[in-house]
């Protein structure tokens, strides 16, 4: 089988064409072209098995200079879990001050990924 991909690993966005077969449920790539680095091939393999994505959102901050602190997950999770992940992220609350890089949740949704803050939010001046 032949399939075309746009690699999303980096902004180069390589257009990759891959020939592959599914053997015992595992994709075996026989020919791949268009990728300019190794990560492109890994991306294609993962897309054939189960696409994974990262996601960013925000959570509410109490007593902060800003009402929200931005968050993201540190490793990609299955793409179909992204809407569920965004709903789950909504549940969290933090109290200012918050520093970027604080872990809000380990093993988020049971995946090997952390939910971390990505912004400093100082406490509001009283």
């Amino acid at each position: 089988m032949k399939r075309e991909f746009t690699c999303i690993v980096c902004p180069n966005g390589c257009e990759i064409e891959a020939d592959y077969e599914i053997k015992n449920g595992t994709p075996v790539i026989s020919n791949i072209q268009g990728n300019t680095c190794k990560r492109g091939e890994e991306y294609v393999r993962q897309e054939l098995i189960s696409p994974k994505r990262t996601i960013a959102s925000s959570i509410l901050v109490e007593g902060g200079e800003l009402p929200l602190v931005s968050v993201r997950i540190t490793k990609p999770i299955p793409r179909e879990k992204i809407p569920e992940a965004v709903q789950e992220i909504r549940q969290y609350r933090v109290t200012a001050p918050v520093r970027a890089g604080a872990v809000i949740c380990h093993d988020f949704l049971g995946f090997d990924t952390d939910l971390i803050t990505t912004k400093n939010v100082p406490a509001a001046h009283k």
Partner: protein
Amino acid sequence: MIRENIDTLIVGGGPAGLAAAVELWKKGMRSILIVERERQLGGILRQCIHDGFGLSRFGESLSGPEYAQKFIDEVTALGIPYLTDAAVMNITGSRLVTIATPGGIREYQAKSVVLTMGCRERTQGALAIPGERPTGVFTAGVAQAYINLYNRMPAREVIILGSGDIGMIMARRLTLEGAHVHAVFEVQPYPSGLPRNIEQCLNDYHIPLYLSHTVTKIHGSSRLEGVTVSAVDAHMKPIPGTEQYYPCDTLILSVGLIPENELSLDAGVTLDPRTHGAIVDENYMTSVPGIFAAGNVLHVHDLVDFVSMEAERLADHVAEYVREGSLPPCTLDVHYDTDINHVIPQKVSGANPFRLSMRVSHVMKNAAIEVRQNGNLIAKKAVKKALPAEMIQFDVPADNLQTSGDLEVTAVQR
């Protein structure tokens, strides 16, 4: 009124200004000041909470605020002076800078000024779409600020006009926040944003992208009720009979960015009609001696990493200018053919290597960008697929350059 002398005044504390300041400091420059009109440093990155920043500059995928924080931490650790809540009101051609601060007006006589004001979004006013002017029409960046900074959801049923990166990123963000994004319409026959964003922001969420289509009428009185969309011909003129009505309460515009150069014009800086930024030489110096520009105020970039790196290159030349009082003259023009939309720099000396930045004006497969002078091939860069959406950058070595004879940049089919 306070009036001080300073070596370098940096206008804007976004990614370009921060990177320039850190690099100047590392070069031993101590008489420098960053002036930022917002309450915090970081510029537009503060609202760009998605990841994918920093892959080139730091080798890791960061969100916008994290990327900015790396530079802010460095500015703080080094003790680089900065003012926030401070707006530059005027810059003269002799580099007298007037700043409004909460403590009153200040003036600086600067040996050099670094312009890093970034860019603005093109707005509805620039598009002249017929119809009413109800609320519900926002630029992508304004919608992004509502959601990511102020915790306000501005939309339920959404149409997006323009396939800029911020528009596509907002298509995903709005979808995940519960809005229904019907489609993205792009007037040009090719997307204006990066392919990876089409993939991960539109295709992943089954949001269709229609090329050669535009919004031809806005409906609604107090709130937007719908838009009429038409297909356009090769000259981007709407084709009668193709009109289709889409009910929606929100129209998001992602139709381009314009470098913000009002202050530059006050200072007498000459702008390039193509980039809407300053005409600069290989040192990133504008037509006014001692005034330099880098980042999105010079030409709109695709990636913040390249903004930072351009500002870092600028810093080398600013340091030399302050030290020596002048820079080698750049009298050679860089010309280009119709396949190319613009080039940076527009002037060179012919004595030094430089980084050429450019965009093609239409999609070209298996292209090569060639730089020639006096009939000699000076530099060549092969590009598998040249897209207007992707800036092309490469170094032009000094080896074969001569100090007389203009340069010619062409895009050729291989």
